[in-house]
Structures are given as C-alpha cells and as structure tokens.
C-alpha cells in the first residue's frame, strides 16, 4: 500500500461520567493509508462513533497515540485541532448538519470562511463544488427546501471545501432512501477513485459496506475483524 495517513497505537478512550467509567475504545492499533476506502462497522455502542470523533480531531484519546499524517495529534492545541478539522478533514453526518438559516451556497462556503479564504474565491469554489454534486441550480435554496439526498450532497460539497485528504462520514445514508443512498455512495466512490481521497464511512448496513475496499468491525471497543476485500463494488 501507499503512504500511511492515520496510525493509532494503543488508543484508549474512557468516558468518566463521575460515578461510572465507560471504556469506549480499548487499545486500538490501526493504520490507514492514503487513498483507502474503508467502512467501519459495528453495533451501536461498539465504539465506532468514538473512533470517528477521535479520527476527526473532535475528541482526544485518554491513552495511546494518534498520528495524523505523521503528526501526533495529542500534542496539538485546541486551535491547531480546529485548523486540522478545517483543512485536513471533511465531515459528513447522518443528519446532514447543514446550518438551516443560511443557503446551500453559504453552507458550502463556511469551512472556507474559517479557513480565511477571500469572499470572491470562496463563492467561486463553492459554486464549483455544488456543480460537481449536481446542485448548481439549488445554490440559493435554504436547506429546508432540499430533499434528503440533496442535503447530503450539499454536505459532501461542504466537506470538500478546503480540499481535505480525509473524508469522514458518519452513517451518511442513515436518513436516506435506498435510491439516494446509492447516489451518495457513488459520489464517495468517485471521490476515492478519481480524486484520491481517503474515505472512511461508519455504517451498520452491509450493502453500504459492500461499496468499500476494507471493512473494520468493532465490538465492545475493540476491533474484532479487519478485512481487506481488495476492490469494492464501485
């Protein structure tokens, strides 16, 4: 395989709620290479969402080390982590998480606003991204005027705004009908195959995992299966 982009060593996450301690992840060792297309599977509570949060630098591990493109994330300040989220990672959520009071275009522009991209360039790039997901004509619609599949496409466009290497999708098809689900997965396939993005998808649906090349299965905070299938169905 090619360059290593994510490496985790003995990664443990413990949630301390005061009275009880919940161990969400137990000594995870995991390496992900640039350009991989991965599905993370597991029942709810298996630790897969916690892993996503840590990969996405929204959360810090309790123990162990996490290297993102060779840099130890534990050593970064909160502001530096914000910059990592802004530049290196694109998030796609189950519930789309578009900001409802602004248009599709403004939503796509948002990461570039925080990335200090100038207004002109921002708008141009946002339009291009929307064109790429086939929503150029919906640019000025508000999120509540879009269908589920369209919302998720806007979310993907937004995730790509600052050209991140890694795309993290947490149950991206969870709120979509099967038709839209397939469309969304095709976009992820295209991004992985043609643009070379590292795509990591958390899902509990077998047929979604079928699209990917590697399936990592979690149970009780541990990896119980890490299966490289070769080439997925896209």
């Amino acid at each position, binding site marked *: 395989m090619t360059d290593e982009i994510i490496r985790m060593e003995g990664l443990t996450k413990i949630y301390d709620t005061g009275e009880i301690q919940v161990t969400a992840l137990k000594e995870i060792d995991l390496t992900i290479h640039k350009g991989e297309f991965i599905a993370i599977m597991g029942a709810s509570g298996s630790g897969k969402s916690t892993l996503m*949060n840590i990969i*996405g630098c*929204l*959360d810090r591990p309790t123990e162990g080390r996490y290297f993102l493109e060779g840099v130890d994330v534990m050593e970064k300040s*909160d*502001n530096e982590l*914000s*910059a990592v*989220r*802004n*530049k290196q990672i694109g*998030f796609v*959520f189950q519930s789309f*998480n*578009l*900001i409802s*009071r*602004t248009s599709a275009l403004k939503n796509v522009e*948002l*990461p570039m*606003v*925080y*990335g*200090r991209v100038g207004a002109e360039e921002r708008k141009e790039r946002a339009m291009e991204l929307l064109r790429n997901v086939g929503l150029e004509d919906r640019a000025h619609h508000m999120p509540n005027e879009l269908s589920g599949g369209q919302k998720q496409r806007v979310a993907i466009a*937004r995730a790509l705004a*600052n050209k991140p290497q890694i795309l993290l999708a947490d149950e991206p098809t969870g709120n979509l009908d099967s038709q839209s689900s397939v469309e969304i997965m095709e976009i992820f396939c295209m991004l992985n195959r043609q643009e070379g993005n590292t795509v990591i998808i958390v899902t509990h649906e077998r047929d979604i995992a079928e699209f990917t090349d590697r399936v990592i299965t979690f149970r009780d905070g541990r990896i119980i299966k890490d299966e490289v299938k070769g080439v997925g169905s896209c």
Partner: protein
Amino acid sequence: MLIYENIILALTSIKSNKMRSFLTMLGIIIGISSVIAITSIGASAKGVVGKEFEAYGMNNMFAYLNWELTQDGVEESDLIMPEDIEALQARFPEDIKYISPYVQVESDTKIGRVKGKVSMYGVGPDYHKHKKNMKLLHGRMINASDVDGEKDRIVIEKKAALSLFNKENAVGETLAVVINGEMKDLVVVGVYEVPASLFDAMFMSDAYQTYVPYPILQTGDRSNWAIELYTNEKKNQDALGKEFTSYLARIKDKEPNFYIFESAESQLTTINKILGTLSIAIGAIAAISLVVGGIGIMNIMLVSVTERTREIGIRKSLGARTKDILMQFLIESMIISAIGGVIGTILGIVIAAVGMSFAKIAIVIDPKVIILAVGFSAMVGMFFGLYPARKAARLDPIEALRYE
C-alpha cells in the same frame, strides 16, 4: 478576523427574529433615549438661560450689605449714602456705566373703575440704555432732569397702558399711587415693552413693572441697603465686584467683606452649575435603565446560544476556533445594542425636540453626548454579551453536535 462575516451573520439573525430583537433592544432604546433627552433638555435650558441673561445685560450687578455681618441690627453708618455712591462713581469712572440706589415700592392704583397694582422701580437717568431688552414705544425714559428734580414721573409697560388707560400711548396720563404713605399723582412720560421672558413665571407678582426716578421713592436720610450698577462689560465682573465692594468698605471704614455683590455673570454661572448637576444626576438615573437593558441582552443571548448549540457544534466541526465562535456572539450582542443605541438616540432627540417646542425653546444637541451614548450602548452589549459568548465558545463540539 471574520468581522465582516460576523456582522452579516448578526444582521441576518437579528432580521430573522425581528420581534425578539426589538424587545431585546427596547431596554437600551429607553435608556439611551432618556439620557439623550435629559441632557439635550438640560443643554437647551442652559442656552435659554444664557440668552435671558444676555438680554438683561451681563454687566448688571447689585452690591449690598452682607447680612451675615449685620444680624445684630443695621447701624446707620452701615447703610450706603448718596455721597458713597458719588465716591464710587468718581473712583471708577471707566468701570461704572450706571449706578443708582436699589429701591422698589409697590402700590395699588385705580383709574376710574379699573384697579391695578404697580411695582415702581427706582432708576437713575437713561436706565434703558443699559437694560438691553427694554424697548421704548412711546415718549421717553426717566431722564436726568426727572431724577435731579425729583419729579413725579413714571414709565409704564405696554400691558399696563392697555389695561389702565385702554390705549397703548398713555403718555401724558396720570397715575395715582401711594409712596411711603403719601398719595402722589405720577405723570406717564413713556411706555415700554420687554419681550416675554422665561423668568416672567418666576415673579409671582401681578403688579405691573414701572420705572420712576429713584429719589421719589427714598425716605428721610436717603440711605440705602443696596445699589444697582451696570459695569464695564469688557472686564471680569467678579474682579470688578470685588474692587467696588472693597472700596466701599474702605471709605465706610468697615471690614473688607462688609459689602458683597452679585453679578449677572455669577448668577448665570450658578444657574448653569445647578442645571448641569441636575441633568447629570437625572441622566445617571436614566443610565441605570441601560444596565437593565444590558441584562435583557444577556438573557436573550443565553437563549440564542442554547438554541444554536447544534449550529455551534457544526461550526466547530468545520474548523471554527473558540475565538471565532466568541466573536460571532459578541458581535451579535454588540450590534443589537448599538442598533438600540442609534434608535434610542433618534428617539431621545425627538422627545427633547417635542418637549422643547412646547416650551418654545430651540433645541441644543451635544454631539459628544450622542457619540458617548452609542459607544456606551455598544459597550453594554459587549459587557453583557461576553458571558453568553464565552459559554458558546467553550461548548464541547461532540456534545453540541448531539444536541437536539
């Protein structure tokens, strides 16, 4: 910094919650408008008082016995005698433009069936040349020959002429009055007019103001407890007053502060000081409502932060730093507050203008006050917005994203 983006964002959210934003601003609007209205009314009143004094003559002055030193009884030697007045005039020929004993007598009068009351003010020659707001309509003012000859002459107000003689030009008519227990028939030699004054209401007397030669009002030895002067207006009135009174004390062989004075200038200063203090005091009370307004802003911003918890989570996941979120909310609260400040300023000016128009006074607006008010309201917004903004900025992104 994302100031421009944040301003647009703040305006959008203010627009999308119009009623709520307006109610939030209301506290600031009320606070700022009352501060502006009160200070403008104060400033306008000062201007008016200044003009009144100017009309009267800023070089008007009274000198009189210091009552505090004569509480045990006034002795004859304390009183100001005609020769003292002459000595003063002779000592300060340049600085004393007019000098006469201060003497005033009130009397009932009756012309046919019309009854009236006149207040006779004793004056020296050509008093109208010094009292600037006085305008002679008919005849003449009391002159030197009236004074020297102690003639029974009187100059009356237009109002009095109309009411007592049923005509404006009452020159040549006679007016029967009682002066120091003695009946006298005074011949009207002039009719004058003064413009309506703010002070008219302050003098409760219903007597008509008239002028007569001062000697006809004086009794026996012609002693006086007070004198009226018009001074050299180019000089410092305080310094002149001190010179006059200390000279008077010296020639009367009294202690230096035995005679005191009150100049129009010093009265104006005192009134201005009172007006200034008054408007600051009332303004400060009004400013308290600004604090209440600020608390209103804080309250609504806390609600906004809670409402937008998920949005904050999304923004953070997209790379917003703590500072970015802090600025977003801080700018929003400052803008709410500043808009309130601007509306309040306009409202305050309107209130002051309407109030002043009832009093027929030109409004004076101090631009400093406006800058101060708007600046202060933005400060209030910043101060009371800080806590909600920090709360928003410190939200944990994962918790915030999970918020329903």
